[in-house]
């Protein structure tokens, strides 16, 4: 549990960080909170020669809400997400999700940017960002571009981010409807056995105007459940419709056997968790 040798860099701005990454290339890794990367380095599964630590890049640590849009800097910690009243008003599901990540000590270090950029299917924020229809700003040698969270994840640890890009910002529309993040885990600090993010908007007539469902750790990427979301809007929230939406979402998942249990169990638990999330979100809508 001792890392290999590496050089440590602490740039003070985004351009400086991007330039450093361009210069050092494949031998470098960007580090945010480090809760995925450092353990990997201690196991010597990752042995980067250079670490580019973003903690001194002040502009990456911010939360702002304006014009119905939330903008969060990549280095904003989960503790800061939880503490922000402004963010809680704009998107209460973020606090609900953040409180289910790891434990308080980890959340003081763990960042939103690191959580979404790493591509670990166990992370909770990627599915949440898909549910919120967030977009990620990537800064690289060729400038900035944005990628939608629903198109960002390709496979476990593979994302649309180029090796020379840094994920700097996360933006999503404020959301005031019903919400729920339900997570089954073995203990505090664990990844999800199954987790579901659900947003539902109830119209004046009691119909479901808007629905968004995404799932965590049930495939090698987070899963946005487009079809299931659409079904809830078109068919409503009666039990047949919910059953059908859950069945549709379950058609997308591909869980693997691990110490949390075999895939068969996870399939069952995932359906229960999703159903509970839908019920909770609708009750809050």
């Amino acid at each position, binding site marked *: 549990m001792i890392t290999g040798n590496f050089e440590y860099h602490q740039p003070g701005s985004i351009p400086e960080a991007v330039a450093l990454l361009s210069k050092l290339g494949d031998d470098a890794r960007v580090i945010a909170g480090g809760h995925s990367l450092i353990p990997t380095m201690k196991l010597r599964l990752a042995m980067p020669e250079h670490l580019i630590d973003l903690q001194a890049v002040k502009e990456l640590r911010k939360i702002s809400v304006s014009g119905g849009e939330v903008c969060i800097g990549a280095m904003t910690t989960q503790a800061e997400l939880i503490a922000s009243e402004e963010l809680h008003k704009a998107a209460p599901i973020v606090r609900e999700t953040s409180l289910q990540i790891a*434990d308080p000590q980890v959340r003081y270090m763990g960042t939103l940017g690191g959580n979404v950029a790493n591509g670990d299917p166990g992370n909770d924020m990627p599915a949440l960002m898909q549910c919120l229809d967030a977009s990620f700003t990537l800064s690289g040698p060729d400038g900035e571009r944005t990628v939608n969270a629903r198109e960002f994840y390709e496979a476990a640890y593979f994302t649309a981010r180029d090796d020379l890009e840094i994920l700097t910002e996360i933006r999503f529309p404020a959301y005031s409807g019903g919400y729920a993040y339900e997570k089954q885990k073995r203990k505090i600090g664990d990844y999800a056995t199954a987790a579901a993010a659900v947003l539902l908007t109830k119209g004046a007539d009691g119909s479901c105007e808007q629905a968004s469902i995404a799932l965590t750790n049930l495939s090698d990427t987070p899963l946005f459940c487009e079809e299931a979301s659409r079904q809830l809007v078109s068919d409503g929230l009666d039990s047949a419709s919910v059953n059908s939406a859950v069945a549709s979402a379950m058609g997308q998942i591909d869980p693997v056997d691990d*110490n*949390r249990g075999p895939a068969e*169990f996870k399939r069952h638990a995932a359906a229960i968790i999703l159903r509970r999330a839908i019920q909770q979100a609708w009750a809050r809508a």
Partner: protein
Amino acid sequence: MSATAESVQERRAALKGLGTSRKRVEDARFTQGKGNYVDDIKLPDMLFGDFVRSQHAHARVKSIDTSAAMELPGVIAVLTAKDLEPLNLHWMPTLAGDKQMVLADGKVLFQGQEIAFVIAEDRYIAADAVDLVKVEFEELPVLVDPFKAELPDAPILREDIADEKEGAHGARRHPNHIFTWEQGDKAATETVIGEADVVAEEMVYYHRTHPCPMETCGSVASMDKVNGKLTLWGTFQAPHVVRTVASLLSGIAEHNIRVVSPDIGGGFGNKVGVYPGYVCSIVASIVTGKPVKWVEDRMENLSATAFARDYWMQGKIAATKEGKITGLWCHTTADHGAFDACADPTKYPAGFMNICTGSYDIPTAYLAVDGIYTNKAPGGVAYRCSFRVTEAAYFIERMIEVLAIKLNMDAAELRAKNFIRKDQFPYQSALGWEYDSGDYHTAWDKALESVGYSKLREEQSQRVEDFKAGKTRKLMGIGLCHFTEIVGAGPVKNCDILGMGMFDSCEIRIHPTGSALARLGTISQGQGHATTFAQILATEIGISADDITIEEGDTDTAPYGLGTYGSRSTPVAGAATAMAGRKIRAKAQMIAAYLLEVHDNDIEWEVDRFVVKGAPEKFKTMKEIAYASYNQAIPGVEPGLEAVSYYDPPNMTYPFGAYVCVMDVDVDTGVSDIRQFYALDDCGTRINPMIIEGQVHGGLTEALAIALGQEIAYDELGNVKTGTLMDFFIPTSWETPNYQTDFTETPSPHHPIGAKGVGESPNVGGVPAFSNAINDAFRAFGLTHTHMPHDHWRIWKTANELGLHAES
């Protein structure tokens, strides 16, 4: 007179002696990060060791190439078995009469086994060099299932002893077989079972787990080549035994070895044995002439140091139709891993598993245990319990439940019907123990009344109805347990470790100004010895506990003792402390009589002083006596006030308790929720109620961990699947329920102060209570028994197999 009576009480309170909830004196440093652990030890020119370990569970080691590692600047040496062989240290004896490789001698037998020891100038270089050592393996078939160990195609693991028909514990019937240990009357038991009204049978598996103390194992060895003295700091639960073993192994005279256990961050049995890291750090220091530190990491601790449990217990329990138990039969298949490194008293290869008749008056019983080698890490230590007592308690408390199901009887009633009655103590058990004392019915009734047992059963019945009616998806389980422990090993006539009788010791010096220093042969790992032993002594010698320093763990200063494990510190060293205190008091009486100018028999002890009988105004306090012992020439009495006691206990002690756990179980997700846990402990005389409560909380939490998820699991290739704390369950405050503690007090008749020990009771009794609650939740749906650990998916699987998911 009332003023005097009050002042006696005040003086007694000022002593902070027996029965006082005194704050732990250790906590001032522990809560401020000022403890001094092995890894805090830094010596000039200290070198660092790290192991090359096997990724394979069973393989021949064809070659080890250390050249690239040796070329790395800062690497001093790389030791392999070849280097240790001339010193005859490539193997070492285990506590169980077997031997164990220190470094791989031609083959490896478990994943994580030590192959080479790299010594470097800093910890980082050592880790880098480990990566540079090239080991060529030839993989061999792996044996992980003990039930396949004696099949014709089973690989032979221990080729070194393949032809030996006799082991340390009698005949071996197969190269992968270690011993068979039998207790009780086989023929009579089989007859009783054959003729019984009712027989319940079950295979009860207590899975492999690990003590996982917060501080991992480590040592710092420093060989002073000028004066020939070796100092060894380490995570040792038994430092004196380590000194003796180190002397026997290294050939260094015992007076030239000083072993020090500094602060220890939890042991739970994991730090009883001797590990290759200790031996290698010693050899490395002898070779280099510099201090050498070795501290393992968490993964090394979980995968290579001593595991616990792994007992497959096949049981049969016989009873009359009315529920009177007539016989108990048990055959245990014990998976010991690659070497038999159990830490048991020599004559007990399965520890005190023969306490498995539990709290019950079972007239006829038989136990057989077969020890088996597999390609897993060695160990089999007593994880927060006396030797194999948790296994025994789990077995009988599951068998009682299984029998209750067979009899269609309430499990609480079945227990009460079969408890050893108060008037039967001292009680001779069918498997050979003499239970010293107990009052089980009183404790049981108190427990059931406290939790409102009959109301709970009514609620449970209603819940079953509601579940069947589709109104809820949660079942309710009531987990009962009445356990009896056997701790305080033990009488020298039948208990020893490597030939050392399991006595313990205390040496007391009273200083001229009336404060004291007491040293013991034990070593605290969090138990609070510095607090509680001072309290025992305070009551015995009338000096405030605040004025008594307790020291342990340095073999150059502390008297020889067998260490701390198996809840033996209070029963054995605590007894030695009381006995040494009484020697102090006997001498003090002579001094006081001299000072008061009366005969010895004319004065009597009162809290903190000797008082002239019938003349309470004439007295000498212990403080005055202490001063006099140093500054007055008293005819016929040596100066000074010191005493030492080596205590050989006449019997074990038998703490017991009654626990009730109430759980809700979500049938669909397998999530369990503990809504109530009541723990009544009877540990005899209570020394410090606050420490007892802390011990109970800690032990119950470890029990919760084991019952609900904690395990060392292997795949079929012998890979450790649970080698990090992500997968190896350690509960946080979030997973830990509120505990409701209670007590009865049945003093041990043979212990000087009646104390029995408590640190391990909650783990022994907690595991069956948690497990019984899970099992009980499904009793109404036809479940007889399901194995631990009861994690979400296994609970879900149970529900699934019972057909409870059909409608969801």
